[in-house]
């Protein structure tokens, strides 16, 4: 993992703020879709997957029933040029039929929109969802595609030179969102979210 180059400037969200943001997103998903029926949460590897599970748990705490949770890896759907082929970091699993489901894609950082575009293509290879929505913990701007998030934990104005680092206890040692610089990093967040 390329961590060494990251120099944090400010903490954007701490553990409690991340928890509240997830709770709010869970409520917004329920409100918009009139309950959890037919909702399928699909996390983008790596950190979208634990976020999707947290949102599902928050929905279950309110409704008593948890929506299905899947995961998607976009390695084979990327449109950007890289120096080496990217090997998927986790499995693509869709536990229930995508046809007529409302798929909520979950990612940590929304930046250029290219990851979300790739994830939509991947989901559409599994069937024809009734709708696809997008939930992100941080929206840092600089979109390169006509994509916007339906559910946003935190809007974070940033410059392209900056890096947003999301850490989650399931993957990292702690929960935090930080903004900073990492000279050797070209993508939107550490761990190459685009």
């Amino acid at each position, binding site marked *: 993992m390329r961590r060494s180059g990251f120099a944090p400037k400010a903490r954007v969200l701490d553990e409690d703020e991340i928890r509240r943001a997830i709770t709010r997103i869970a409520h917004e998903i329920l409100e918009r879709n009139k309950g959890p029926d037919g909702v399928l949460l699909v996390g983008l590897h790596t950190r979208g997957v634990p976020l999707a599970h947290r949102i599902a748990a928050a929905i279950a705490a309110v409704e008593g029933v948890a929506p299905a949770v899947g995961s998607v890896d976009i390695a*084979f*759907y990327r449109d950007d040029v890289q*120096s*080496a*082929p990217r*090997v*998927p970091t986790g*499995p693509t699993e869709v536990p229930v039929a995508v046809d007529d489901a409302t798929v909520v894609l979950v990612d940590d950082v929304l930046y250029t929109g290219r990851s979300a575009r790739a994830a939509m*293509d991947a989901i559409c290879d*599994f069937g024809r969802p009734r709708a696809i929505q997008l939930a992100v913990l941080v929206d840092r701007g600089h979109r390169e595609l006509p994509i916007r998030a339906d559910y946003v934990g935190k809007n974070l104005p940033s410059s392209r030179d900056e890096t947003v680092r999301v850490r989650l206890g399931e993957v990292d040692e702690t929960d935090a969102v930080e903004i900073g610089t990492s000279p050797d990093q070209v993508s939107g967040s550490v761990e190459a979210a685009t």
Partner: protein
Amino acid sequence: MTRSLLSIDDLGREGIETVLALTREFRDVSSRPIPKVPALRGKTIANCFFEDSTRTRISFEIAAKRLSADTITFTQKGSSLSKGESLRDTVRTLCAMGVNALVCRHEASGAPARIAQWVDVPVINAGDGAHEHPTQALLDVATVADHRGDLGGLRTLIVGDIAHSRVARSNVLAFSAMGAQVTVCGPATLLPPGGESWPAEVTTDLDAALEKADIIYLLRMQKERIEADPVFGSIKEYVQMYGLTAERAARLDPDVLVMHPGPMNRGIEIASEAADLPASLVEEQVANGVAVRMAVLYLALGGTP
């Protein structure tokens, strides 16, 4: 820099493990409602089969199509090679037309390596003479990994015409790179000169070797070669000494895995009873072939402009 795959030695253990990880992903892709990903959209792959092949060629074609690459297939028959064009001119012409990778099968050992020097696109060896057949070895390792997880310490016995077998050579390299203990077994006349330098034990005694094998890998035996062999001269004698007969298969521990690269000569190197044992992985090997070749093509071309 190109990312050719000419020999298993190009990969090493780390490279093989990357191929295995990708193979699992691509097997998932193949089981989806739309068994296709856009990873190699816009790339053109030329399958150059200067020697006949059906299953390997089709397997590479399906693999390329499931990655959304365009494919052209080129066989010796009806090509300008039969008009006397040199191999070098043929492959350079293909590249001048904008082909992004060449998959090459050739009867001459070392031909793909030679081609790789002439062109600046990745070259994938799909079998060259008696040298190597790396994608076959990778799919064999993937098949065993499905059943046993780690290959470390697995006693792997490769039986048959070792000297003329590119499958044997690539498998010895691949299985030993993954930590398996490899033994090759065959009549002395069909053991390779210089075989002592291979990372494998060499024996002529099949029955003794069978006693201590976790995996038995039968090579395809060419009838003409047995009949020309000064020691055997008849297929019956070969089968008695080196065939996985029904009697030998009956003595095997049920956990022993039986493998064959295909096409099988039932009744020669493998009896029908052995080929159809529950422990026989022959069909799984074929099924893994597409996913392994997707992994190899993706590593050769993925991520490039």
